[in-house]
């Protein structure tokens, strides 16, 4: 019986509750947070900026890679020319040598 009464009292303990009130400074604090929010850079803008920087970096990276590759290819071509010319020179030297009886 005592237990039943206690349960009933506990169940009704929130009756006649005086409502909680927001602090007096509520609006001022809210205004402060709103002004902080407007100063902050919006997230979509930040994402766009990050993407642009990434694309620029990638394009610079690939451009240097392409330049390096083409430079290396040119170097190979130059080397081939050199060796071809060199072999022509050798032939002419052999010819001279033969003519001179060596």
């Amino acid at each position, binding site marked *: 019986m005592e237990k039943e009464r206690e*349960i009933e009292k*506990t169940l009704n303990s929130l009756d006649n509750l*005086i409502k909680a009130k927001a602090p007096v400074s509520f609006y001022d604090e809210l205004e402060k947070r709103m002004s902080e929010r407007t100063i902050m850079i919006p997230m979509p803008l930040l994402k766009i900026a990050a993407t642009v920087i990434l694309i620029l970096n990638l394009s610079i990276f690939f451009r240097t890679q392409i330049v390096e590759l083409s430079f290396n290819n040119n170097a190979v071509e130059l080397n081939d020319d050199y060796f071809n010319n060199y072999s022509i020179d050798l032939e002419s030297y052999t010819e001279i040598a033969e003519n001179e009886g060596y």
Partner: protein
Amino acid sequence: MVQKSDEQLLIETGEGLNESFRELVSRFQDRVYNTCFGFLKRQEDTEEIAQDVFLHIHEKAKTFRSESKAGTWIYRIAVNKSLEFLRWKSREKRSGFFNTISIEDQKNRSNWEHPGIQMENRERATILYSKIESLPEKQRIAFVLHKIEGISYKEIAEIMELSLSAVESLIFRAKTNLRKELENYYKS
């Protein structure tokens, strides 16, 4: 001068009128604060989330359709923000494996600091509140809105987008579950 309706203030807030927003905040700040308190228990959390509610209102006022009442719309945001915060907190607690919670913090979490409880009811209300937390989410929302904020069943039905009979059933089941929980509590 004719006082503007809540809906009118909300529409004007969406159009960027700061004076209307200020008036809207002064009309609803206590109701939002008390509702959030009903879910969050702690003053610091309540202040932060009640402000989040108004920041959301300020941002989304343009999307308000006058089909529902402004009060219903605002209460819905307050409930959702409070529950979002509780979910985030419980996730944080679960993921914070290495975090230690101080004894003081534990004490604060278990106590219900609602300033409106009469002294002689404080202990009982704290017990009841710990049991309310274990209720299924919908029962908890309906019960808290009715008991803490004193909202009618009809308005709760609008806030929760349910029928009136569904709300009646939710509150009935909440009371039955609480009674069972309290029987176990007092037995032990």
